[in-house]
């Protein structure tokens, strides 16, 4: 049963989402970036932002935006690198009409600006499965962690924990062995989903960053297992613990960008989601799998949030968990 929920179920869900969600990711996003030549308040940028799906990204360098575009993560990259010149990077043969519209918008705002159209051939397209798979891997890691505390509740209620204690096994040893055994499940599930996704479902994901992904999966596993312990410390029965885990599992999955891009959510929800450990984890993992460059800061924020949530939950859970 455990294997079904933690391995087969995410695979089924990934496959289903891969087929039923037609357009995911940021493939519709027209990202506008600039070096110091333009700001968001510049008249031309202001005008461009009135185009549907256009978005100003001050955190992205023009080269990074072009790279994201060439990897298929964006619909178009609009780069303003020097005064009086704006480049439109687009898919050749697909977005010519849009390029004309954007050129007109720029000319209307400032006729002195030179618009350069830069067509690209053979730009890869991120299919729904490519977008969903990293999210599903992260979701599985979270589920194994959050629901893991239920096992402790079952062992407590069946007095197995008591029996272990009578044999000299300490509380910290029980918690550590609980986390260690499930970390193995986390890593196994993540690897299996990755390989099935890549080689059977043919997801276009890049595994060259495995040495970053694996430690992040490990840290995420410990974080969510600690949260599972905290949940277990709040309830008497495994059933109650399961219901609570379920009640936070699905909302978190929806608001943290697993199924839909975070940018499609209302702003207050985005702000709330940004302090949850799942949000940066999903984004970082997805970027790593889609070979989109991530900054050191993004990596630090992701790991930092996981560590803060993990240590707080582990500390509180260890104190509050009732062994009898």
């Amino acid at each position, binding site marked *: 049963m455990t294997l079904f929920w933690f391995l087969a179920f995410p695979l089924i869900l990934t496959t289903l989402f891969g087929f039923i969600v037609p357009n995911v990711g940021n493939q519709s996003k027209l990202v506008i970036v600039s070096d110091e030549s333009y700001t968001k308040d510049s008249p031309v940028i202001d005008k461009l932002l009135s185009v549907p799906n256009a978005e100003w990204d001050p955190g992205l360098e023009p080269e990074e935006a072009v790279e994201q575009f060439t990897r298929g993560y964006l619909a178009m990259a609009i780069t303003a690198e020097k005064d009086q010149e704006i480049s439109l990077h687009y898919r050749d043969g697909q977005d010519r009409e849009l390029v004309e519209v954007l050129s007109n918008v720029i000319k209307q705002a400032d006729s002195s600006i030179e618009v350069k159209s830069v067509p690209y051939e053979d730009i890869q397209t991120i299919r729904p499965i490519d977008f969903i798979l990293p999210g599903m891997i992260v979701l599985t890691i979270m589920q194994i962690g959050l629901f893991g505390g239920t096992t402790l509740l079952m062992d407590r209620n*069946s*007095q*197995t924990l*008591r*029996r*272990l*204690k*009578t*044999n*000299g*096994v300490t509380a910290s040893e029980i918690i550590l062995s609980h986390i260690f055994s499930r970390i193995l499940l986390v890593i196994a599930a993540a690897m299996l989903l990755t390989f099935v996704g890549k080689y059977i479902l043919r997801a276009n994901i890049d595994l060259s960053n495995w040495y970053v992904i694996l430690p992040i999966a490990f840290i995420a596993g410990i974080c969510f297992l600690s949260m599972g312990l905290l949940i277990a410390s709040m309830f008497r029965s495994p059933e109650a613990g399961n219901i609570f885990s379920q009640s936070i599992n699905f909302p978190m999955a929806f608001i943290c960008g697993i199924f839909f891009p975070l940018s499609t959510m209302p702003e207050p929800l985005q702000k709330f989601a940004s302090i949850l450990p799942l949000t940066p984890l999903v984004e970082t993992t997805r970027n790593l799998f889609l070979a989109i460059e991530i900054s050191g800061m993004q990596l630090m924020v992701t790991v930092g949030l996981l560590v803060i949530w993990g240590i707080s939950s582990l500390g509180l859970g260890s104190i509050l968990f009732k062994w*009898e």
Partner: protein
Amino acid sequence: MNVLQVDKLTKSYGDKKVVDEISFQVNRGEIFGFLGPNGAGKSTTIEIIAGLKKADGGKVTVADFPSHSNTTSSIGVQLQSTDLYKELTVKETLLLFLNFHNRSHVLDEYIELTKLQQVLDTKVKHLSGGQRQRLSLSLALVADPEIVILDEPTVGLDPQSRRTLWGVIQSLKDRGKTVILTTHFMDEAEELCDRIAIIDHGRLIALDTPVGLLESIPYGHTLTLTTEPQITESELKDLKYESIHFSDSDTIIHTAQFTETLSGLLQITEQNQMEVTSLKLKNAGLEELFLLLTGKELRD
């Protein structure tokens, strides 16, 4: 020689005192029985001894362990009801627990002791009640403890399984172990225990050998007589007995000299032309002692 000393142990849950200043000592190598009805405080007392619960007051001293805080290698506990890991086999379960004490090399000894040879490769979930209890008992022994605490080990077992487990417990004594056994079965206590402590409402009300306890009963036998019509107390005024009471249709007579009482009783029924429809004779046992001490039956 004492292996365990308990002094004025107390424990309350809220306003309810479940262990009330209990004191006793257990001698090395004996089977010490705790007899009492459900809820008497037996399990709480042994859980305190085993270090699973903290006492509100009093002291437990285990020989060679001045501090009672770390006695897991000295005391083995079989809890009243615990699940084991259902998907593990008997052998895997034994090895797991033996490894906690770095004693996996003595696996065969424990298999033989608890007669689990036939089910070594059986998953725990497929064991019968008796087999599960024997496995549970063997897990209490994996640290090779000097004191073995068994909490109601035969509850829910069929007579044959009970007898098998009794044999195992007896063999523990033969190996020099000290066994503390809680039970509410009088036959079990009489059969196995060298000394028995009777506990009720958290208080120790009697402590002696089974023979000593039985000798403390002022009568040796109980006669239960049913006659038509029912005999009255005035008709029994010349009969020798220790005590008498009447139930719906029965007359229950406790006597120290049952031959004399029985012949007198038959004479009275004959003289009064009564028909004896039932006559039962029973040796006085722990049940009667408990009744005498508490005014209620043990099974209550």
